[in-house]
């Protein structure tokens, strides 16, 4: 619209301050708004009292993870730091568990109490402490502490996150996705994304997708739900949940049949030429042929001789057969041909089950073949392999893949992830230009990881690291009676390769006293009374249940968290942690590093502001507690504490000679990786933006598992102590060893009821079987799959306390596919009753078309218990928000065999969240979602009614 000029007022253009000082100081640290660990510039301004306050947060341009960008969570970190839900002082329970009634106590009282409780256990039965950490980013520290204490019962949250992905990757190729590996975003021409909605990792995927778009590379998303990354996919395949493995095996079928596989790569770098005992009557049926030193043997095509795989100049045959003492051995490749060329995997055979048409599957296979083989990437970078052979170029297949929880959180997730890696390897698309590459300290073969340890001895440390990789039934953590050594039953016949433990089983097992009773449950940053448990309502009951004597069945619960979460209400003793801007932290190559495919990197956090509450960094508290308990490594001979605090530990702790938590600026400051402790190390990190990075030499940047220059570089840096070249395991022999046990061909035998399942699910070549839950129930009664996704602007339960982020995602409807919506006559505003074999919820509903026709879903962890997180009781998160967790049991429905089977992957124990099946019914709009829980009393003051803040004023 416009007005006649003579009626118009000339605008009053004020003089603008165009160059306001952005801040008084920039302090660089590491974000903790999710697990990405981006570098951040925290802009500080001096307040009226002279103290520096946080003004705003932006990405650090020099940082290897985010290169300057930052996501919604990262920039909203200031509101996390200022959250009204921050705990203020140690709390001692002063009412029934779950009520939220506490009294504030001093740190000395809190630590004295914890010491009394734990000291008693340690000297009698250390396994009675179950110490589990959730979104812990200090696992090399917490596991060291738990080892010193002597309990076998330690793990972080990997068991309900993505252990299938991590374990399948490491057993197959000595690395996996995300922290272990990344697509070659600059060179790839076809990118396939399986089961990743909006996270893991966050900024690097967004940056990578942006680069693909700029470069015109193709991006295909395979996901039942089209949001987030899948929304910008050039092609979207809305697969039926739990069938990714079947689709992938069909792609393998098509590619093998068409000869679109990288034969040279397979012969040189994988166990495709290795020789499998093919005699069913042999006690070693299915085992690989090895020499006395344990090296896999292959037939050399030039000489026909049987030689170790690493023989100089060998040209391994992919088709040879070899008889030893009358036992025929055939190559892994021959077994694969027999398995995957079968019509069982033809597109037509899998189309209905996967919800993807046969022509679509063929088109996808052909796209992969075209991208991989029509125009390979050739880099003029000479390199030498571990057999001493020099290569003039690096040849790559520009097809890259990334996948995460979507394919992982199923009871067939391990084999599905294995299938995906086998697909990548078949086309030569791992560690080659344009494909997917590992990040140091990966690649690292499964055999170079520790075996699990779990033998408790009163008053003494554990016999070794808790978590590890099992290669044979002999490695299991079971006692002579076959009973589990760990409370979560990790590393048992039920789930032998549970490399991350089973945090989701801890509370139910402890409650049942199965395999034994515990005394103290000690949790860190794990919201187990709410969104991090299956069957939340029942878990809340278990935490409050009392025995005949009136005592709690789980006698003591210690919890550490920075915020007033739902779990706080169930603790007897609360140790308040700091926010991420108030603490030291160590993002270490010893646990979950932040390396890139062309560089090793680690990082720190440091207190850019001091806490204004009586709170302490969790790791410093654990060192104090460890000293009070007299744990080895935490007290000096004169009785003084070994480490003043976590920063002191980060600087001075030595894990193996010359190796500490941080790799940068060791010794006199000029050493990297290896070197003595350097008292100025943290200062050097701060000067460098809180991270350290060492670039991999050019000739060492690809083919790392076999590249002599990379292996030497990794040894010099201290990633390993000697070169560790290895073959990728298309054929996973450790799985076969468990099958042998199930066949009665091992010293140890699984319980009879597990034998058949082990034979079907622990195949040494990837297989697909239907997710357990749907095989156990009447699938027609529960026709829909139900999933959750994490939104990009939230990280599990933390987001709802954040005033900015909760304005983005304050509610979570159940998204219903159009055919179901229309068939049931849903109208806008309607609600839905959702029923699973285990429960029922009533929740808001919304229609969505970009969704698999048989799938409903919602955002995870938006729903909150009233009274938690300093939210008002009428907050939508507490009234209309909901969790699907109420519908998911940690056990499968009873099937009449007198046993209860775990709702987990049978190989790794990964929680099978995404196997959930439901039915829905339309209901009229409701005032609140159900189930509705009684409010918990908030241990923090009421939140402000208006936020109107500028720093420095």
């Amino acid at each position, binding site marked *: 619209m416009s007005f006649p000029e003579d009626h118009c007022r000339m605008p009053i253009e004020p003089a603008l301050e165009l160059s*306001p000082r952005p801040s008084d100081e920039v302090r660089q640290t590491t974000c903790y708004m999710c697990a990405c660990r981006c570098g951040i510039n925290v802009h500080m301004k001096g307040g009226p009292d002279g103290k520096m306050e946080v003004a705003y947060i932006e*990405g650090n341009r020099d940082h290897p993870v985010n290169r300057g960008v930052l996501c919604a969570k990262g920039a909203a970190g200031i509101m996390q730091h200022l959250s009204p839900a921050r705990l203020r002082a140690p709390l001692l329970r002063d009412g029934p568990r779950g009520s939220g009634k506490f009294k504030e106590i001093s740190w000395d009282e809190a630590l004295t109490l914890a010491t009394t409780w734990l000291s008693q256990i340690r000297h009698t039965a250390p396994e009675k402490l179950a110490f589990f950490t959730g979104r812990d980013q200090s696992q090399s520290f917490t596991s060291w502490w738990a080892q010193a204490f002597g309990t076998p019962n330690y793990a972080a949250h990997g068991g309900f996150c993505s252990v299938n992905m991590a374990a399948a990757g490491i057993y197959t190729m000595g690395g996996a996705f995300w922290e272990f590996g990344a697509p070659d975003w600059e060179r790839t021409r076809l990118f396939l994304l399986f089961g990743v909605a909006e996270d893991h990792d966050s900024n690097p995927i967004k940056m990578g997708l942006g680069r693909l778009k700029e470069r015109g590379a193709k991006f295909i998303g395979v996901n039942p739900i089209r949001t*987030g990354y899948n929304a910008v996919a050039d092609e979207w395949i809305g697969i039926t949940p739990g069938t990714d493995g079947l689709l992938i095996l069909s792609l393998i079928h098509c590619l093998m049949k068409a000869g679109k596989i990288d034969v040279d790569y397979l012969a040189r770098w994988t166990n495709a030429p290795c020789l499998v005992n093919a005699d069913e009557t042999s006690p070693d049926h299915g085992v690989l042929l090895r020499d006395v030193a344990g090296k896999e043997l292959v037939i050399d095509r030039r000489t026909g001789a049987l030689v170790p795989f690493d023989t100089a100049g060998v040209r391994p045959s*992919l088709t040879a057969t070899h008889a030893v003492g009358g036992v025929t051995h055939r190559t892994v490749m021959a077994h694969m041909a027999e398995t995957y060329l079968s019509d069982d995997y033809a597109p037509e055979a899998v189309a209905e089950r996967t919800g993807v048409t046969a022509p679509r599957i063929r088109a996808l296979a052909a796209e992969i073949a075209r991208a991989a083989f029509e125009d390979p990437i050739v880099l003029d970078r000479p390199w030498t392999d571990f057999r001493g052979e020099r290569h003039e170029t690096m040849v790559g297949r520009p097809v890259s893949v990334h996948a995460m929880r979507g394919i992982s959180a199923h009871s067939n997730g391990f084999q599905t992830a294995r299938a995906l890696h086998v697909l990548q390897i078949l086309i030569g698309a791992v560690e080659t230009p344009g494909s997917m590459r590992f990040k140091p300290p990966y690649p690292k073969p499964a055999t170079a990881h520790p075996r699990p340890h779990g033998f408790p001895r009163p008053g003494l440390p554990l016999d070794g690291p808790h978590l590890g990789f099992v290669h044979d039934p002999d490695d299991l953590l079971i006692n002579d009676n076959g009973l589990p050594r760990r409370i979560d039953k990790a590393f048992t016949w039920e789930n032998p390769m549970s490399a991350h433990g089973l945090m989701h089983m801890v509370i139910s097992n402890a409650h049942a006293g199965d395999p034994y009773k515990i005394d103290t449950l000690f949790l860190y940053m794990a919201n187990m009374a709410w969104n991090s448990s299956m069957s939340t309502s029942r878990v809340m009951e278990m935490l409050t249940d009392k025995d005949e004597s009136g005592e709690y069945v789980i006698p003591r619960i210690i919890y550490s968290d920075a915020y007033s979460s739902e779990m706080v209400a169930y603790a007897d003793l609360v140790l308040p942690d700091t926010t991420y801007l108030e603490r030291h932290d160590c993002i270490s190559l010893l646990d979950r590093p932040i390396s890139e495919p062309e560089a090793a990197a680690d990082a720190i956090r440091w207190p850019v502001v001091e806490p204004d509450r009586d709170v302490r960094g969790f790791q410093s508290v654990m060192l104090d507690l460890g000293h009070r308990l007299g744990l080895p490594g935490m007290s000096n001979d004169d009785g003084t504490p070994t480490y003043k605090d976590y920063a002191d530990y980060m600087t001075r702790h030595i894990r193996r000679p010359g190796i500490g938590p941080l790799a940068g600026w060791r010794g006199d400051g000029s050493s990297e990786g290896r070197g003595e402790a350097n008292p100025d190390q943290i200062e050097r990190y701060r000067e460098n933006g809180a991270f350290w990075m060492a670039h991999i030499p050019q000739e060492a940047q690809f083919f790392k598992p076999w590249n002599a220059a990379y292996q030497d570089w990794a040894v010099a840096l201290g990633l390993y102590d000697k070169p560790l070249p290895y073959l990728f395991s298309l054929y996973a022999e450790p799985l076969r060893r468990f099958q042998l046990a199930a066949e009665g061909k091992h010293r140890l035998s699984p319980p009879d009821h597990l034998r058949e399942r082990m034979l079907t699910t622990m195949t040494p070549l990837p297989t697909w079987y239907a997710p357990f839950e749907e095989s156990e129930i009447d699938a027609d009664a529960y026709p829909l799959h139900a999933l959750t996704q994490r939104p990009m602007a939230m990280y599990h339960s933390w987001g709802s306390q954040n005033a900015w982020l909760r304005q983005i995602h304050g509610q979570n409807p159940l998204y219903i596919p159009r055919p179901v919506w229309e068939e049931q006559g849903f109208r806008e505003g309607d609600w839905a009753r959702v029923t699973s074999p285990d429960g029922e919820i009533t929740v808001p509903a919304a229609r969505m078309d*970009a969704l698999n026709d048989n799938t409903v879903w919602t955002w995870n962890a938006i729903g909150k218990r009233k009274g938690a997180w300093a939210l008002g009781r009428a907050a939508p998160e507490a009234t209309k928000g909901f969790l699907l967790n109420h519908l998911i049991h940690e056990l499968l429905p009873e099937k009449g065999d007198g046993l209860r089977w775990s709702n987990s992957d049978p190989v790794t124990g990964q929680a099978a969240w995404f196997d959930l099946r439901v039915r829905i019914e339309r209901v009229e709009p409701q005032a609140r979602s159900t189930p509705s829980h009684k409010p918990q009393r908030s241990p923090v003051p009421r939140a402000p*009614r208006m936020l109107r803040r500028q*720093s420095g004023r």
Partner: protein
Amino acid sequence: MTSLPKTTEKRLGLAIDLDTCVGCHACVTACKGWNTENYGAPLADADPYGAAPEGAFLNRIHSFEVTPEAGPAQLVHFPKSCLHCDDAPCVTVCPTGASYKRVEDGIVLVNESACIGCGLCAWACPYGAREMDPAEKVMKKCTLCVDRIYNEALPEEDRVPACVRTCPAGARHFGDFGDPDSTVSRLAAERGGIDLMPEQGTRPVNQYLPPRPRDAAPDLDVLSPFLAPVAEEPKGFLGWLDRTLDRL
């Protein structure tokens, strides 16, 4: 009522790539963070932890489903902030002269000390790009980070709007649409940049780069040859393997 300049020396604005935007909301909170600290009153949040939180945001993401006749449904993430229109109705409607468009660069701003919070401009804006601050009761809107883009206290590479600096996918581009050779002008030309709601006659400066076509039916004539079988049976396949290895 307030007058608009006939022309501006530059036409600064954003090219927003809807093909690349993953809807992550990074731009939303980066904007909130910078603009809470800078330009005028802090961006307040009413009832921030209660039943109906209502804060002032200068930039929001909306998501729309598009269901084509054939092929799967699509989801478009649509970031929306002030488009700094050449014919900005929010300026002409302002009774106090508080809303204005800068002659030097075309940025539309609110002089908060002259704003009486009457809300006429928000009513006049067809895009819903203005929000009343719940505490200060003055009108807030995108300033194109006028206090960043010329800010000599910032490193030169940071003299872009906060939303552009933070965007992880690189879906936001800042520049002068008055210069046909600028990156944003070229992007708009190459990608068929569109005016939002041109029928409103506002002549927006910001341009949206439309999503590229998605989910094209596979061209089986091209793709099928890649799957021509080398063998039907395992034995034939092993023969093919040997022949292939012989050729290497």
